[in-house]
């Protein structure tokens, strides 16, 4: 399902686009929540939104649902402007923490949503089974745990088997078992629907998503397939292990291309493209250095994320 083709708006492609944003901007008063965001989600993709607090992820999701109007730019969801009533029936959404009428049961809350979509109560029973919440369906939502509310929210998003699922932090509050089940559910859902999800768990995005957009301060700082993003971000970092350290240091300092290397005991990290590695090894060997290992460092998505956003703190759910 991973997509490596150029899918920027304006490019020619035969596949119908599920979500298309071009230069979308949104400000709340003096706060610029989204700045010129352009992205495109193809059918069947599991598309991840990553970004620190206030990056604009939830605002983008609200824009797609027509809950928030963009100030500028073009938005198309399933080929229609956001908020189109017929289109909304084909979208399932869970935005931020799931909200329900607290003193009503989970089942009644879902029935209210189902009736608004013109769906029978049997559909409510189906989605309750999918999220494994049948046993608690007739209890008041006010007595639900955070994880149960989250599953109820996902159940609401699944009503009517939508073509597009928009899930904002779907694993929030779930225990490890629930998180794994949700991950599996998202993958299952991707067989019938396109999934757009944000998560503060970078590992989850890495495991679940085909493609990812990294947002920071409302701007897109990277947009690619997860594998490409990891590969691109990690390809220049080389780890060198060599002895003796002082001689190695001397060789590295002698060349401007290597002088930025950082040392950690008997290993060094330096930025180097593919062609530069043989030259480095040759210079070290000619100087009498014992080269024990030269390897490319593969960064995790978390490291890539921090590198892209310049953030040094764990990512949390955002605006």
């Amino acid at each position, binding site marked *: 399902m991973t997509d490596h083709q150029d899918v920027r708006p304006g490019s020619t492609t035969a596949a119908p686009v599920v979500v298309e944003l071009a230069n979308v901007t949104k400000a709340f008063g003096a706060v610029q929540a989204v700045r010129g965001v352009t992205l495109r989600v193809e059918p069947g993709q599991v598309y991840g939104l990553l970004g620190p607090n206030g990056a604009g992820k939830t605002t983008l999701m609200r824009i797609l649902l027509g809950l*928030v109007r963009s100030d500028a730019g073009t938005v198309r969801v399933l080929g229609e402007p956001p908020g189109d009533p017929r289109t909304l029936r084909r979208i399932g959404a869970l935005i931020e923490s799931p909200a329900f*009428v607290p003193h009503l049961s989970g089942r009644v809350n879902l029935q209210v949503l189902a009736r*608004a*979509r013109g769906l029978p109560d049997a559909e409510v029973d189906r989605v309750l089974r999918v999220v494994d919440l049948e046993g608690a369906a007739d209890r008041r939502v006010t007595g639900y745990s955070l994880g149960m509310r989250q599953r109820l929210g996902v159940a609401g998003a699944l009503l009517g088997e939508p073509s597009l699922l928009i899930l904002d932090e779907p694993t929030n509050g779930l225990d490890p078992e629930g998180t794994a089940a949700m991950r599996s559910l998202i993958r299952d859902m991707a067989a019938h629907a396109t999934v757009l999800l944000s998560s503060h768990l970078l590992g989850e995005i890495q495991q679940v998503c085909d493609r990812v957009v990294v947002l920071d301060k409302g701007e897109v700082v990277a947009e690619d397939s997860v594998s490409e993003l990891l590969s691109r971000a990690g390809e220049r970092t080389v780890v060198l292990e060599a002895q003796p350290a002082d001689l190695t240091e001397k060789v590295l300092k002698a060349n401007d291309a290597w002088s930025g290397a950082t040392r950690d005991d008997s290993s060094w990290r330096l930025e180097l493209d593919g062609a530069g590695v043989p030259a480095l090894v040759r210079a070290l060997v000619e100087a009498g250095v014992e080269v024990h290992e030269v390897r490319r460092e593969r960064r995790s998505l978390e490291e890539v994320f921090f590198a892209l956003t310049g953030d040094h703190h764990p990512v949390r759910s955002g605006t």
Partner: protein
Amino acid sequence: MRNALAAEALLMRKRLAPLVVGGTWIVLVVAFGFGVPYIVYATLDPVTKAADRAALLDLLLPSAAHTTAAGSYPLFGGAIMLILGVLVTGPEYRWGTWPARLSQGPGRTQVVLAKVLAGAVVVVVIAVAALAASMVTSVVVALVEGQPLTWPAAGAVAASLGVAVFISVAWLSLGAALGVIFRGVGTALGVGLVWTLGLENALSGLAGVVPALEPVRAVLLGPASGSLVAALGVPSLSEGGAVGVGEYMSGPVACAVLLAYTAAGLAVATVLIRRRDIT
């Protein structure tokens, strides 16, 4: 619209608010429309106040139960229905459920209209229940006082019921708009009740001594409600009737004012929900 209405009807049926508001209103109608006047009647001297007693008893018998019930609406009924209106829209902000409500398919206008329409259905049920409770109470009074059970004409009962619903829907619509304007329940209730029970009464009272304020009174919801009830033949407070009832304007003008408030409340709620970002 059908889907939106089905959803809102289910929500309204399952919520506690209509039961609490409706139950409270029925108790108030019985207590202040019949209970308190009956106590006054029972404490009046049968010899020196015989005429007053007879007039008071007439209002408590089945033949006048429908108008006595309607006479409760202009002041306290309005306030109660305003509370119901606020509870139709306001809690969605507290619960954070507007995003879910507005992303299921029905448009924003449809959702707001469905909410108020579902509220209007509740208002009809409450008005019928209050009328039924009034009838039962009046039968009890008649039996206790040994009076004959004379029933009002069906048309007169229907007219009273219609007036009660008409007044209630106008207040409900105003309350729904306040819930949206103030994005919640607390402030909307505070402002609504201060306006209804305080400022409207003050302005209406002042208009009696300051003629310049009469045009202002002519566009207030409370006086319009009181005038419409007066048009049914319900006596004003000075005539031994209910608080808030009075011929401040003609029946048709009162109807126009009530219609204007209903339309304005709906329009304000709809326009705000349509224009605002739902966050």
